[in-house]
């Protein structure tokens, strides 16, 4: 049962939290969590919250959170699903985690993900592969696989994750839940292990769009920049984004567009040939930034220290335990940022990004909201794409754009692991959220 926003009976708080804990243990075969808070600590937290008078309850009172293993939560393992950080306990909490705790939220544990958030299926975790609770034998999507799994399987109320190229929207879609990624840079990334800083955004998932507005207001550090919610009468679709969709996905998206039209929205079709360079531009930028950000994992500061008599040896030994996708991305990032190669790919990717931003800004002036499918395909099978990185990268075909231009985007589940993506211009977060809330019921009405 979903909790009420306020006024929960104190016994209900205890019952609900412990019920989640029991469900996490009972559904351990889903492999959603890398670590779970101890019963003792949770009881301490419940006692602390139960003592609070009702008028002092925080905005997230009693809500149970699962946190992607790329955020620091003081006292819990902070491993980014990587053997290189095996056993590392966070000595502090991420800014957003502090805010959750300050507003009386409860942290249940850290959820599984692709190693250092590198992946689109969750299969790159060094520890386990989260199982899709809605579609047996299919991936949860990535990189926030365990987070989506935990929300979808009702092991928590809200899942906190990060979105660099679709890492929240894709798994939420594959697990039939809702998600929201705010404008880039309006939420502190302090305590979030970075994949690519110019793309990383704190984001979250929930079963219905219930607490997103509260979370946005709570986390946003540039409230004065957020624009007021607009009433939407026109929405845009980009022709090129409707091409190359799986038949089932295409049918579902077209049906959803018809539903929105029946509700009185005018749908306007645009063309943007530049779409074809979005995924290459995203990967070039991400490889470059990732290879740079991974330099801090040198075997000195975090996790188990491996043997090594000097810095060179320590770095190499520590990095030898990294997974294949992480090594692949570090190598590619190193290649792209070499002086002799940077003109060829990286600088072109930056130019492509600027152009995409310019073209999207022009489109948003015509139609403030753009919609598309979240993924070109429905959930794919475990092991189906893992051996082919390019096939895997193609799952991000429609999500990377929002990260490249730093705009807000959310997803509404349409069932069967298919989702509708809703995207707005930078700082139009409230309008995007308004659409998600309003359309959630429209698009899923029988």
């Amino acid at each position: 049962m979903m909790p009420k926003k306020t006024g929960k009976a104190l016994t209900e708080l205890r019952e609900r939290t412990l019920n989640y804990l029991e469900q996490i243990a009972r559904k351990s075969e889903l492999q959603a969590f890398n670590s779970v808070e101890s019963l003792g600590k949770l009881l301490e937290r419940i006692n602390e919250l139960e003592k609070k008078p009702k008028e002092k309850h925080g905005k997230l009172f009693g809500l149970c959170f699962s946190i992607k293993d790329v955020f620091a939560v003081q006292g819990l393992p902070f491993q980014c699903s990587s053997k290189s950080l095996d056993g590392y306990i966070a000595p502090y909490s991420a800014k957003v985690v502090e805010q959750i705790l300050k507003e009386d939220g409860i942290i249940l544990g850290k959820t599984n993900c692709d190693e250092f958030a590198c992946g689109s299926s969750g299969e790159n975790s060094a520890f386990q592969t989260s199982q899709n609770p809605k579609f047996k034998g299919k991936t949860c999507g990535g990189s926030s696989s365990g987070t989506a799994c935990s929300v979808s399987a009702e092991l928590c109320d809200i899942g906190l994750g990060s979105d660099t190229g679709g890492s929240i929207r894709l798994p939420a879609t594959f697990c039939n839940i809702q998600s929201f990624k705010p404008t880039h840079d309006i939420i502190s990334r302090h305590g979030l292990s970075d994949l690519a800083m110019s793309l990383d955004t704190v984001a979250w998932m929930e079963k219905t769009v219930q607490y997103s507005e509260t979370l946005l207001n709570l986390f946003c550090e540039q409230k004065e920049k957020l624009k007021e919610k607009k009433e939407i009468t026109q929405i845009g679709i980009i022709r090129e984004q409707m091409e190359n969709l799986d038949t089932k996905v295409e049918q579902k998206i077209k049906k959803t567009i018809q539903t929105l039209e029946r509700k009185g929205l005018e749908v306007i079709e645009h063309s943007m040939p530049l779409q074809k360079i979005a995924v290459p531009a995203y990967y070039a930028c991400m490889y470059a930034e990732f290879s740079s950000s991974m330099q801090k994992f040198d075997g000195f500061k975090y996790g188990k220290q491996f043997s090594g008599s000097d810095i060179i040896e320590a770095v190499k030994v520590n990095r030898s335990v990294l997974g294949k996708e992480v090594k692949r991305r570090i190598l590619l990032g190193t290649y792209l940022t070499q002086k002799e190669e940077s003109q060829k790919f990286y600088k072109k990717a930056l130019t492509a990004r600027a152009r995409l931003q310019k073209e999207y800004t022009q489109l948003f002036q015509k139609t403030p909201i753009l919609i598309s499918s979240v993924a070109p395909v429905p959930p794919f099978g475990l092991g189906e794409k893992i051996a082919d990185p390019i096939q895997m990268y193609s799952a991000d075909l429609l999500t990377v754009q929002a990260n490249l231009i730093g705009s807000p985007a959310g997803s509404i589940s349409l069932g069967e692991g298919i989702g509708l993506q809703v995207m707005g211009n930078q700082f139009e977060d409230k309008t995007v959220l308004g659409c998600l809330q309003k359309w959630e019921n429209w698009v899923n009405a029988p």
Partner: protein
Amino acid sequence: MKKEELEKLAHLARLELTEKEFQEFEKELAEILKFLEPLNTIDIQEERFQTNEKQENEFRKDCIHIHLNSKNIVKMFPEQKNSLAVVPKTFYKNSSWEQNSNSRRV
């Protein structure tokens, strides 16, 4: 991608690759670079991506707060000496990385 090129990259990235990894990455990296080829249709211009409408520094409030407890931090290191963490050697008296490589610094 040639093996020598990959060896150079692995050295720059401080990655030690197995023979199997070299073989796999030689093929995969070449395929991925081909996948990035559409970027070559772009002319580099002076346009610059702006992550935020107005680029401004956002400073945290200058207020007193509890800092990380150094004792707890040091405890997390596998090797400690006199309340300090023991880490592999970083600086050397001379430029040779090889000399005195068995000793560790506190």
